[in-house]
């Protein structure tokens, strides 16, 4: 991944910038209204956090309970250590049943394991059925937002895409485009041998998996084909059925600001004996893929409490500027910044813990109150410790400069001298003035700073002296 390059590209993309502002503003305002209107919102978040904390602290027991109850209701349970194993399990189920085409509802976990690529390599067609995902799949791209995967595309882009890929005339109205997708996808649902979904929650007590949506494509995916396979990260557990009365409103209100979503499906096993519809087979695939490794560090363990509402993205000043594609993997925004390095291995995404201003806006909106600044700092320190261990010129330079900095700021006389010196030393660069009188560009190594932002110029009269003057003028403390 390359956060620096991809985010710079995103900032230049005018359509993306407009879309990002639109979607994040809309979701932020809606979330704010919904949470303000919910009595005792903060207390609900505290309870949810505590429940997640205890669930994760007993993850093994709850997983076993879930497994037992899914089996009791007639379903099958599979355990996948990593993405490849999960892919193979799903491909295997398809092959055993002679499945040629699969319909999918929106699931970050299937993105994570690149299921579509795997299915296609095995000669099985996979069709995304969420409208946004369908658009993205036709375009051969990746989702840019957890909740609104295709926000970076304008209606014009989509019209051209449909005309090219589906052979329909150029349609400019979202209503018309949606109708085309509905018709195409209805045929896909009827023809598919298997439906693959994610899961927003899995309930240990009853063996129920829960899917939250607005379109109805997840309902079709889990109702029409003969086989339903659900892929669920092992952290998505809730202990009790009744926990849903707390977590469902928290999830939906944090995500879109709706009071509740259009559809919520609570699925417990395959169809029962005399049922006239619903899948004949139900499979639950439990995905580890790095999650159990996150447990080992108590400082970052809470990353697993996440219920994937997307609120932290919408409220993050960095995400709002750089968008989802800059984070290099399926998860983006603050949650991506903490979870991608932990799931992929910190060496794969060392830039991400730094892609934050530590303002804490994410923590303030997170329905399970993940303490982002704390987790980010912990991950940063891990990155730096590793860099120091592996050595390298820049690590050495960084640690030397901090030693130098400490020497300067802890000795008053040296500090004053250094300021004086800096004031004169900066002069050659002061001609290229930036907004607010900062320095726009400096030579290496300071260019590492000024490539990305302005550096505040050193003032001629230090604050210390201005302060003295002010005190003299006002005759005492101001």
């Amino acid at each position, binding site marked *: 991944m390359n956060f620096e390059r991809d985010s710079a590209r995103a900032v230049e993309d005018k359509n993306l910038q407009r879309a990002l502002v639109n979607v994040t503003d809309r979701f932020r305002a809606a979330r704010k209204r919904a949470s303000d209107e919910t*009595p005792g*919102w903060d207390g609900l978040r505290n309870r949810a956090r505590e429940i997640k904390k205890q669930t994760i602290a007993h993850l093994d027991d709850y997983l076993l309970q879930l497994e037992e109850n899914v089996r009791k209701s007639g379903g099958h349970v599979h*355990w996948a250590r990593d993405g490849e194993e999960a892919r193979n399990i799903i491909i295997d189920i398809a092959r055993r049943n002679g499945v040629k085409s699969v319909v999918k509802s929106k699931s970050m976990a299937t993105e994570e394991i690149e299921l579509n690529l795997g299915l296609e390599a095995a000669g099985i067609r996979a069709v995304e059925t969420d409208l946004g995902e369908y658009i993205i799949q036709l375009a051969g791209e990746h989702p840019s937002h957890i909740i609104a995967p295709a926000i970076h595309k304008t209606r014009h882009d989509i019209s051209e895409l449909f005309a090219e890929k589906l052979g329909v005339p150029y349609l400019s109205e979202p209503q018309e485009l949606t109708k085309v997708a509905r018709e195409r996808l209805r045929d896909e649902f009827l023809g598919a041998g298997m439906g693959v979904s994610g899961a927003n929650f899995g309930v240990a007590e009853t063996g129920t998996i829960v899917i939250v949506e607005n379109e109805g494509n997840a309902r079709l995916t889990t109702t*029409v084909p003969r086989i339903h396979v659900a892929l669920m990260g092992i952290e998505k557990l809730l202990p009790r059925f009744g926990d849903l009365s707390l977590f469902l409103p928290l999830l939906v209100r944090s995500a879109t600001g709706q009071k509740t979503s259009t559809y919520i499906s609570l699925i417990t096993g395959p169809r029962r004996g005399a049922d006239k519809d619903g899948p004949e087979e139900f499979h639950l695939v*439990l995905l580890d893929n790095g999650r159990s490794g996150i447990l080992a560090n108590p400082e970052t363990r809470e990353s697993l409490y996440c219920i994937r509402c997307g609120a932290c993205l919408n409220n993050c000043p960095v995400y709002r500027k750089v968008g989802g594609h800059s984070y290099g993997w399926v998860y983006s925004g603050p949650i991506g910044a903490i979870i991608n390095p932990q799931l992929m291995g910190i060496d794969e995404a060392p830039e991400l813990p730094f892609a934050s201003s530590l303002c804490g806006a994410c923590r303030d909106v997170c329905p399970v109150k993940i303490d982002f600044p704390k987790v980010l700092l912990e991950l940063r320190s891990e990155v730096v410790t590793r860099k120091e261990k592996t050595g390298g010129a820049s690590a050495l330079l960084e640690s030397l400069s901090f030693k130098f900095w400490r020497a300067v700021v802890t000795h008053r006389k040296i500090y004053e001298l250094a300021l004086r010196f800096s004031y004169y030393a900066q002069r050659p660069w002061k001609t290229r003035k930036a907004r607010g009188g900062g320095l726009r560009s400096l030579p290496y190594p300071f260019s590492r700073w000024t490539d990305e932002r302005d550096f505040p110029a050193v003032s001629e009269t230090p604050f210390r002296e201005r302060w003295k003057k002010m005190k003299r003028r006002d005759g005492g403390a101001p």
Partner: protein
Amino acid sequence: MTTGSREEILHRIRKGLGRGEGGGHVDSEAPLPQNTGPSSGTGEKRSDLAGVFAESLTGVNTSVYSASGRDAVLEFIRSFVREKGADSFSIWETEFLKSLGIKESLEVAGLAVKSAENKAGMALSSVGITEADYAIADTGTLVLLSGPERPRGVSLIPPTHLAIVRKENILSDISELFDKLNQLHENQEPIPACTTFVTGPSRTADIELNLTLGVHGPKELYVLIVF
């Protein structure tokens, strides 16, 4: 091999949590906190749940009607399908709907009934008629439990969904609903294969955040409250 993977994942989890093999005991630790969700049931609101429910429905693009007594219900449904220009329908066969005789009445009126076993056929039917087991006033939500006489496709595949709700089944909020559902489990009734919450017609905002109805599920949702 899945068995090996299962053991390995459990082992990793236990190692990460710093516990020995065999797991801990969930109930030996601090008890889980209370899990009631947001409540909206002030005393005043509780006295008129049907009113609150109707108001919530209007907020989610759903038209709501009410009728009292068998004749009034049948009269409403016949004029409803006439207005919709419906020529076929699919329907849940709950005790209550059977006692009203809706199916027979619509067949007499010349509409063809489509069975849920034939998905392609049901896609052609004009109206799906269900009876919501419960409704949540606070959010305008219908709760549909699946079963042999209650196929899931009826509220999903036809372009129009008409749900009938008995007034006494309207609950105040989601916590009250989960209390009810938990009671069902305690009475040893097996939990249905699928419990569906429906709030408004199918919708998407995936194209430039434009609200569009009927993307996959029904484009229109109607609710008839029976007193």
